[in-house]
Structures are given as structure tokens and as C-alpha cells.
């Protein structure tokens, strides 16, 4: 077979050899176009979420800047009265922060120990059969709409609280904390369980080989080895509790109250945003802008907590190698 000098790929294609190219192997332009089109489509899909995020942050920032052109940052961060809609306006965000903090702390008090103990049970103690029953149940807990949790707090937990503490307000921080705590148990238990399971079996065997009991293996080897992952799950759960809206709006009341008494009615940052969003607040007014200032505060807090948990998790990956 003599090399045919004239048969060059018509598209040029960078082919510098004089050999004729078998049609099976020939570069196909149509496929290249197809590949590029798919790549572009995938890129656009990925871009949507990024653009939305950028857009949301941009809107938050502009309105927040407008708000702070009228109210000083100092007043906002240190004031103890939050009355933007009143005749005498005060823009101290501390009552809302205190409300969010109280719900977050109260729910953490419930969810962190119960969630962690559940995770230890599932990862170290439960038989395969018990796991098969318990894990779907926990997922159901995570799947209940938060509005249902809100009503559960109002119609079940609050009456229960009032039988023990008659002075409890109908809307109170404690009920909301309890119900948010129950709500975030699955976050703690499932992420902590992942962290516990990631601990290599050889570490458990090493401890058993030294005469450790199951409890000693779990508490002295497995939990410490998984600690970073467990802490990350705690931070994420608390971050969820701070961002939780529906249940606290229903159960905790809507009174920006500078208090740390859980039996009183309070308002969280999220509940405030809901109450103003649902009202007929005219755009461009200072009350309207408070939404963004509070939203920004919330956003910064949860962002910091998420970054914190990522950072803790990243550290933990180094640990067994």
C-alpha cells in the first residue's frame, strides 16, 4: 500500500503525517460540538446556584448599607430595644440575638447529648437489625415539616411546661428550644455516626486487645478519634437551630424581649423577619430595611458557623494517616 500524499484530512485537524487516516479513526467534528454543548449546559446549571447566591448577597448588602446610613452600627449591635415599627424607634438587635441565642443554646442542650449518644449507640452498640429500624425512624424525624413541629410545641409541649411551671407564657422560648432540639437530633446523630464509623476498625481492635471493655473502647478511643467530626456536627446543628424559622415563629412568640428567661415570650431574628415580611411594610422604609440588616446578621452568623465546621472537619481528615 503506497502512502497517498493527497489524502489529508479535509479539516486540517493538525494532522501533519502524510498517512491516510482510516475513516473509523478520523477526528469527528460533530462529536466535538456535541461534547462542548453538553459541557456548556452543565456549566450553566452550576452557574445558576452561584449567581443566585451572589445576587442574594448583593441585595442583602445594598439594603443593609442603606439601613446603616440611617442607623449607626453601634446602636444596632449594642441597643437593647428593638422597636422599628413604633413611634419611638429603637434599633437594638440584641433582643433578637438573645432570642436566637436562647433557642440555639436550649436546643443544643437537648440535641447534642441525645444526638451523640444515639450516634454512639448506632455505630458501636446496635445490632444490624436495630440499626435497620432506628435509622429510618431518625430520617422520619428529619423529614417532619417544621410547621408541624411548631404546632407540636404549642399544643403539646407548652401545656406540659405549664403544668410544671404555671408562670410560663403561652408563647415561650423553652417550648421552642425543646422542639428545635428534637428537630436537630438527626443532624447530630447522623453526622456524628458517620464520624464514628470512619474510625478504623483496627483502632477498636487495638483497644480491645489491651483489655478494654466496649464502653472504654467507645468513650476512650472511638469518640476522641472522631471528635473533630462530632464537633463539626454540633456546629452544623446549632447553625440549623439559629436559622430555624417556622417552629420558633409559632411557639416562641413575637415579642422582642431582652431576656434570658426561657419561660418568657421572645422573638428570634428569623421570627422577626417572618413577621415583617408577612405585614404590609412599604418598600424603602426603614422598617423594610431592618429585614435586610437582621437577615445579614443571620447570614453572617450561619456562614461563620458553617465555615467553622468545614475547618474542623478538614483538620480531622489528617488524623489517622
Amino acid at each position, binding site marked *: 500500500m503506497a502512502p497517498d500524499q493527497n489524502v489529508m484530512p479535509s479539516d486540517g485537524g493538525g494532522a501533519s503525517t502524510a498517512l491516510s487516516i482510516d475513516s473509523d479513526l478520523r477526528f469527528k467534528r460533530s462529536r466535538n460540538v456535541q461534547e462542548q454543548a453538553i459541557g456548556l449546559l452543565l456549566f450553566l446549571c452550576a452557574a445558576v446556584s452561584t449567581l443566585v447566591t451572589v445576587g442574594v448577597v448583593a441585595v442583602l448588602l445594598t439594603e443593609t448599607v442603606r439601613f446603616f446610613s440611617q442607623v449607626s452600627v453601634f446602636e444596632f449591635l449594642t441597643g437593647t430595644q428593638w422597636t422599628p415599627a413604633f413611634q419611638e424607634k429603637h434599633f437594638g438587635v440584641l433582643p433578637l440575638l438573645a432570642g436566637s441565642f436562647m433557642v440555639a443554646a436550649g436546643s443544643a442542650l437537648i440535641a447534642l447529648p441525645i444526638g451523640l449518644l444515639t450516634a454512639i449507640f448506632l455505630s458501636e452498640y446496635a445490632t444490624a437489625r436495630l440499626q435497620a429500624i432506628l435509622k429510618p425512624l431518625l430520617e422520619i424525624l428529619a423529614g417532619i415539616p417544621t410547621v408541624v413541629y411548631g404546632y407540636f410545641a404549642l399544643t403539646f409541649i407548652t401545656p406540659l411546661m405549664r403544668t410544671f411551671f404555671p408562670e410560663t407564657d403561652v408563647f415561650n422560648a423553652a417550648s421552642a428550644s425543646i422542639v428545635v432540639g428534637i428537630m436537630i437530633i438527626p443532624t447530630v446523630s447522623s453526622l456524628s455516626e458517620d464520624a464514628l464509623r470512619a474510625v478504623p476498625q483496627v483502632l477498636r481492635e*487495638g483497644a480491645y*486487645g489491651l483489655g478494654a471493655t466496649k464502653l472504654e473502647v467507645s468513650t476512650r478511643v472511638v469518640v476522641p478519634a472522631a471528635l473533630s467530626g462530632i464537633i463539626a456536627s454540633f456546629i452544623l446543628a446549632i447553625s440549623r437551630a439559629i436559622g430555624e424559622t417556622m417552629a420558633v415563629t409559632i411557639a416562641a412568640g413575637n415579642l422582642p424581649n431582652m431576656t434570658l428567661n426561657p419561660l418568657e415570650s421572645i422573638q428570634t431574628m428569623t421570627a422577626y423577619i417572618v413577621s415583617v415580611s408577612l405585614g404590609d411594610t412599604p418598600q424603602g422604609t426603614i422598617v423594610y430595611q431592618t429585614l435586610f440588616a437582621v437577615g445579614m446578621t443571620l447570614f453572617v452568623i450561619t456562614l461563620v458557623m458553617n465555615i467553622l465546621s468545614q475547618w474542623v472537619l478538614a483538620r480531622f481528615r489528617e*488524623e489517622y494517616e
Partner: protein
Amino acid sequence: MATTYDVRLGPEGAALEAKNVSVFYGDKQAIDTVSLAVPKKQVVALIGPSGCGKSTLLRCFNRMNDLVKGARVEGDVEFRGQNLYDPNIDPVEVRRRIGMVFQKPNPFPKSIYDNVAFGPRINRFEGNLDDLVETSLRQAALWDEVNDRLGESAYALSGGQQQRLCIARTLAVKPELVLMDEPASALDPIATQRIEELIYELKEEYTIVIVTHNMQQAARISDYTAFLYMGKLIEYGPTDTIFTNPREERTEAYVTGRFG
């Protein structure tokens, strides 16, 4: 099929004796009626091709198989005149007296000191912990390399150092018997040599059963060698005999490298 068995116990007797031990994982039989006595203060090597059951047998000796789901042990393992599989025996107490070193170094993600102190602490050791940690690290020939950085993470150590740390950790609970499951298989030749020298020194005080797939290693360090094949004990006798003049054809085929 008969097993060739040529182990005479000295005046000190056996540290541990398996009698007709069989192990099942579910329906699968991994060990088939193995009997062997481990003489005190000697090194016994378990050799055989992959999957022959040598690790399984080793894990019977400190009830480590209890941790494997579906594992079942039949027969007796006698230790200090008692059957370890008697229902009244506490496996936790067994493991405190029969220590184990694993194939891959598995230090805890703690400091060097805390790794060694782990066993004594859970056993409520009441003496001077610092002294015990030092003694154990010296016994494991690691003290000189780590004495100035006991607070550092065990992961800062090399693989060979980590394995010696695991040996120190095991020695710190003062076991009567030490089981080693291919302790040098994940290490480089120099680290392996250190471990082998260490095993030779430990023989003064401890009885050691070591699983190895490295026949030269078995020949170098052990006093007695047991050859297992497909869950059965084929031949057990003095290491010299097993490697130079085995009585069973299959042993000879294996030690000369004709299969395995």
C-alpha cells in the same frame, strides 16, 4: 489425616494449649480441629499460605474472634488450666493477660505517652505510670528515639516506630502471652529487622505466638513452627526440623517455595 506433632514441653509447661479447636464463620469452617501447645517463653510461628487460617487461629487465643459477627469457636483453649471459652470466662480479662500486636501499626490518635498509658489506665494501674511508660518503651526498644517527645502525636512516628509503640503499649499491661499477627508485614526491611531483634529479646520474659507469611522470618525468630494448610494443622515441631527436615510432604513443598 494425621498431624505430625513434635513438641515436647519443658519443665515450665505450656503457656497456652489449643485442644481440638475449630472455628466457623457462619457456615464456613476456617479452622478444623487444631490442637497445639505453646511452650512457655518460646516463640511459636504460625505459617501457611494466605487464607489457611493462621490469623483466625491466633485470634482464638485471646478471644478476639468474639468481635467478628457470625464467628463461632469449638474446642478448648487452655490458659492457666482453664478453658478460655468457658461461659464463666470474661473475654476482657483474657485480653488483659494475652496481648495482641496487629498487622498494620494501629496506634491511637493520641500522644506517644497516652498510647502506652492507655492499657494501664483502663486497668486502673496504681503504681508510677511514668516509670511504667518508660520501662515499656525501653522494652520495645523505642525509648531512646522518643524520650524527648512523649507528648507528640503517635502519628508523627515512622511505621516501624509506630509498630514498636504498639508493642510497648501491649507490654505495658504486662501480659503473660503476646500474640503478633504479621507484625512486620507493613514495614520496610530495616524496620522489620528491628522488630525481629525485639522479638528475640522479648523471649526472655514473654511467650510469643507470631503469624507470618515470611518463611525466612519464621526461620530466624521462632523456636517452634506450626504449618497450617486449609484450616488444618499439618505439622508442628522445632523450627529447625520444619525448615530442614520436615516429615510431611506438604510442609516441605511449602517451605521450599513450591506452592504458597
